[in-house]
C-alpha cells in the first residue's frame, strides 16, 4: 500500500487549469485523474480507489460543497481538499463540518497544494491502518 503512487482526482470546471495542473502533479509522481464537473467526480468516486480529491467550489450544476457531502456519503475514505478562488468563512466551516481535509485559496504555488495532498494521504493511510488492522 505504502509504495503505491498516490491517486488524485482533480475536479475543476476550468479545463486548462485541470490539464496543466494534472501534468504538473504527474511530473511530481502522482497518479492523476480529472473530472470536469461534480457529477463526473461522483461517478469516478463510485468506482473506488481514489486517495485524495482536489475539488473546486464554484462549478456549474452541482457546486463543490454539495459534491463534498455526496462524496463522503458514497465513500468516506478519500480525503478531500477544497481549492477555490473564493474565501468564505461560512463555506470553510461547512467544508470542515462535511469532513473536508483542507481549504486552499487559489492561486497558490503548486508546493502548497502538494504538501496538503501529502498530508491528506498520510491521514488516509493512517485511518486505513487503524480500520484494516496491523
Amino acid at each position, binding site marked *: 500500500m505504502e509504495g503505491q503512487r498516490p491517486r488524485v482526482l482533480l475536479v475543476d470546471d476550468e479545463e*486548462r*487549469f485541470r490539464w496543466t495542473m494534472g501534468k*504538473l502533479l504527474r511530473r511530481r509522481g502522482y497518479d492523476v485523474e480529472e473530472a470536469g464537473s461534480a457529477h463526473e467526480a461522483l461517478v469516478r468516486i463510485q468506482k473506488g480507489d481514489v486517495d485524495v480529491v482536489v475539488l473546486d467550489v464554484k462549478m456549474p450544476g452541482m457546486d463543490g460543497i454539495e459534491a463534498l457531502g455526496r462524496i463522503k456519503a458514497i465513500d468516506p475514505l478519500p480525503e478531500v481538499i477544497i481549492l477555490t478562488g*473564493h*474565501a468564505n468563512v461560512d463555506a470553510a466551516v461547512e467544508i470542515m463540518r462535511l469532513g473536508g481535509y483542507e481549504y486552499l485559496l487559489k492561486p497558490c*504555488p503548486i508546493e502548497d497544494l502538494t504538501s496538503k495532498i501529502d498530508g491528506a494521504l498520510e491521514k488516509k493511510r493512517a485511518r486505513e491502518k487503524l480500520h484494516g488492522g496491523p
Partner: protein
Amino acid sequence: MTDGPTEVPPSAEARRRGKMELVAATGPAILTSALAVGFLMAGEPLAAAALGGSALLSAVFSMMLRRRVREERTKDELRTRQLLQAQKLAAIGEMASGIAHEINNPLAVIGREAEWIQALLEDAPPLPRQTAAEIRDSLAVIGDQVRRCADITHRLLDFARKREPLRQWVDPIGLVEDMVQLVERVLRGRDIRIRRCYEPGLAAVFTDAPLLRQVVLNLLNNAVQAIEQSMEPSGTITVTIGESLPGWVDMAVEDTGCGIPPENMGRLFDPFFTTKAAGQGTGLGLAVCHKIVTGLGGFILVESKKGCGSRFTVRLPRKPGEGPAL
C-alpha cells in the same frame, strides 16, 4: 500639530460645538430681557415684570431645548455618517469579493502555466545559456506578479469577509506593546524611535484582541511609512494609551512623518484610496481599520498637519453598550 480633527467627530469637536450652542442659545434671552426693560421704561411695570419673569424662564427653557436639539443633531450626523460609510464599505466589499473571485481563477491558470513551462525547460535539450537564463528570469517575474495579484485579491476577500467580533477582556497595554515590539524588530538599524506613553493601571477592555491587533499594527506600519515618506529619514512614533473619558480607552499612534494634506483627509478611510507607490499599499489598510473599530463600537480620530505628522486615535468603549455615550 493639529489642523483640527476630521472624519468621525471626536469629543473635542463636540465640546467646541457645545460652546457655540451656548452662545446661540443665550441670544433670544437677551432680546426678551431688552423688551422687558423697554416696557419698564415706558411706565408699564406689571407688563414688564411679567414679561421679565417669563422671559427668563423661556430663555432658560429655550437654551436647554436648543442645546438638546443641537446635541441630538450632532449625534444624528455622526450616526448618519457612520451608517453611510458602513453601507459604502459593504457595497464595495460585496463587489470586490466578486471580482477577486473571478480574478483568482485565471490567476491560478497563469501561475500553473508558468510552472509548467519551467518544468518543460528542465527537461528540454540545453538552450544557449543566455536564452535559458532569460526564459527562467521571465518565468520568475510571472510567478512573482501572480503572487502580487494574489496578495491583493486575498486581501480584498479578507476585507469583504463578514466577521463578528469575539469579545473577551483584553489588557490594552499588553496588546499594543506586543505590536510595538513587533514593529521595533523590523525597525532595527533604522533611525525611527518608538516612544511609549502608557497610563499605568489601566483597566481591561472587553473587545476582540486579534482584530484590535490588526488595527494597531496597521497604524504603526502607516506611521513608519509616513516617516519614510517625509523629508527626514529619521523620526519618532509616540504610542499613547489612556482613558480619555470615563468608560472609553484611547490608543493613539502619532508620527513625525509627512502628514496628510487637507484635501486627502475626507478620503482616508475610503477603500482603494492610497498615496503609496504601486505595490506598496492596496488602499485597504485604513478602510479595514475603520470597519473593525466601528464594529467594536469605537471611533478613529485623525489629526494631521502636512509636513509635521499625524495622530490616529482609536477610541474604544471599555465595554460596548455600557460606557457613557459620547
